[in-house]
């Protein structure tokens, strides 16, 4: 998780390798929700979400800021009461058995929620106590987790002096003190440098693969969803608009995409889309302000020359042309009508850092 120590992921894995929550395997769904709704006054943050996450899955919520990802996580982890609908986590009802839910899950919310006046060790110690880790095991457990997230050297410094990345790592460690069988990570890699991000990915994969820990993570990074998740739900305006494995999702769009930058105003773009849609093999064509026109086709090689000819015939000049395999980005675009644009925070400290 840090540049200093590229083996952090391995150590994370090793220390949790023995921690297979076997009983979860046959115990029904890890996370289940029906018709989950959350309104804040007139704002409809979540508009009826159904979820079925099996034990051992890495389930991802892919969506932009404000799509309802965090609100859903807060409902599933008992921080928010749903306006309507039901949900259970680890077999416990989030409304009536909230304490059992909290005991079963580990949570790292979007912003590392830490107390800057405590040291890293003190924070993990308090966290262990509140999670009822047996007294005699607390010191070992804390030392271990500190080692795992590579914070041993800084363990007795106050958290206020930690960098954003260090705070994230400590926050993650604090979600692990009670060895939960289900872990919620709300945008876990936002704000992390690429090396830390890669380390965290490896750690999540190993924990999941070897120990069958269930992950529910939210992200606005397509690559992250693609790499990590067994199943992805694309969230837009509080609703799941598309769901499946990464491969299934990619299969919903055509095999190839031709990106073409047509010059001119919106009318020119519309004209181009109208001209391109009837071409053989073309399944869809959409215009996006940033990416230009995306032409979805079963066969890029056949379609490419036809696109050129067609635009020539229409008298529409174009400045760029590119053939690509369809990616999750295209799936997202097709499902939501807009490109995902992560609110880029990578490398910036999280709020509260550096105080």
């Amino acid at each position, binding site marked *: 998780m840090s540049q200093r120590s590229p083996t952090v992921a391995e150590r994370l894995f090793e220390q949790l390798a023995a921690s297979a929550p076997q009983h979860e395997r046959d115990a029904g769904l890890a996370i289940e929700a029906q018709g989950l709704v959350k309104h*804040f006054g007139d704002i409809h943050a979540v508009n009826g979400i159904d979820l079925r996450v099996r034990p051992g899955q890495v389930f991802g919520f892919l969506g932009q800021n404000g799509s309802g990802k965090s609100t859903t996580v807060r409902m599933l982890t008992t921080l928010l009461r749903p306006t309507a609908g039901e949900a259970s986590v680890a077999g416990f009802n989030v409304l009536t058995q909230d304490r059992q839910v*909290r*005991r079963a899950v580990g949570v790292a919310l979007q912003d590392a*929620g830490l107390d800057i006046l405590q040291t890293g060790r003190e924070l993990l110690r308090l966290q262990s106590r509140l999670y009822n880790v047996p007294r005699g095991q607390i010191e070992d457990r804390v030392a271990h987790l500190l080692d795992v997230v590579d914070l041993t050297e800084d363990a007795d410094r106050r958290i206020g002096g930690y960098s954003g990345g260090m705070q994230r790592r400590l926050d993650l460690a604090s979600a692990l003190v009670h060895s939960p069988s289900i872990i919620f990570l709300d945008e876990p890699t936002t704000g992390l440098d690429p090396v830390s991000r890669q380390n965290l990915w490896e750690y999540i994969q190993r924990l999941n693969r070897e120990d069958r820990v269930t992950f529910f993570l939210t992200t606005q990074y397509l690559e992250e969803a693609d790499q990590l998740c067994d199943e992805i739900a694309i969230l837009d305006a509080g609703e799941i608009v598309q769901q499946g494995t990464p491969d299934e999702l990619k299969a919903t769009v055509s095999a190839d995409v031709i990106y073409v930058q047509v010059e001119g105003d919106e009318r020119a773009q519309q004209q181009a889309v109208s001209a391109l849609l009837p071409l053989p093999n073309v399944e869809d064509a959409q215009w996006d302000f940033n990416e230009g026109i995306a032409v979805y086709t079963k066969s890029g090689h056949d379609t490419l020359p036809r696109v050129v000819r067609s635009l020539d015939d229409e008298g529409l000049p174009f400045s760029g042309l590119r053939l690509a395999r369809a990616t999750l980005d295209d799936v997202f675009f097709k499902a939501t009508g807009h490109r995902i644009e992560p609110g880029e925070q990578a490398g910036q400290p999280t709020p509260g850092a550096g105080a």
Partner: protein
Amino acid sequence: MSAAQASGEPQTSASRDSGPLRVLTDARYLAMRAIRESLRQPGVEITNIFIPLFFLAVSTGAIANFSERGFGVDNYLAFQLPVAVLQAVAGSSSASGIAIVLDMERGYFDKLLLTPASRWSLIIGRVWADAVRAIFFASIMLIAALVAGSGMAAGVGGAILILVIAGLFGGAYSGIGIFIAMRTGNAQAAQAGFLLFFPLLFMAPAFAPLAVFDDWLRIIATINPVTYIMEGMRGLVMEGYAWPVTEGGQILFGDDGLPQTKDPPALHWAFVSLAGFSVFTLTIAALALRARTRAD
């Protein structure tokens, strides 16, 4: 500990995980954290010592020479000691609301809410820490006044009782800040909670006995619970401990249903007021916590 252990035996941890004892254990850990918080911000705490000591010095300096002629108080330093104690305690206990708002802003409050610890332990931990801090600040006021010659008519027992009252008042006072923090989540509002301390402390016989007050102020002071807490402490400093009157080993009760005592002002009114005040502040704090954690 492995995850298999932790998640494989939820029933054992469940049994250790609830009940009043568990609430108190969690509250104690949270109280220790809150006290650690104070120790690491000594600059914030120093005002809780400086301001009441300053007021004690200047009000005594200004008034002590005519207090006997003016309203029959010969030892004005002793008269002022309870005011300094209550002022220090109110100041230090106002900090909890602000601390909770900071926890909310930094997301740490959510992290605490995500643990299986009882919600109540979040309040009790703060109240507990404030009671401990109150006793600490009250001790400093007490020592300073004793060194300056206030005397303590009720002796060592009286001093201990004053610290007990200070601790209870501190715990009760922190309920106000917690209430504001839970209701608003706003640091400015929590800061403003400190202002409540002015009517509570100064619409009471802080500078002179009730007897010389204008009617309007005396009426307000009569319904102010702090009046009775202040006078209870003052009785200990200036007159001594007012033991309940007993007859044949039985405590005699007066017409008001309270134990009769030899010397007014009676200490028991201080405790009655403290009880009422704490029930009120802690109830509104608890209701506000409930509303915040359950409503949305």
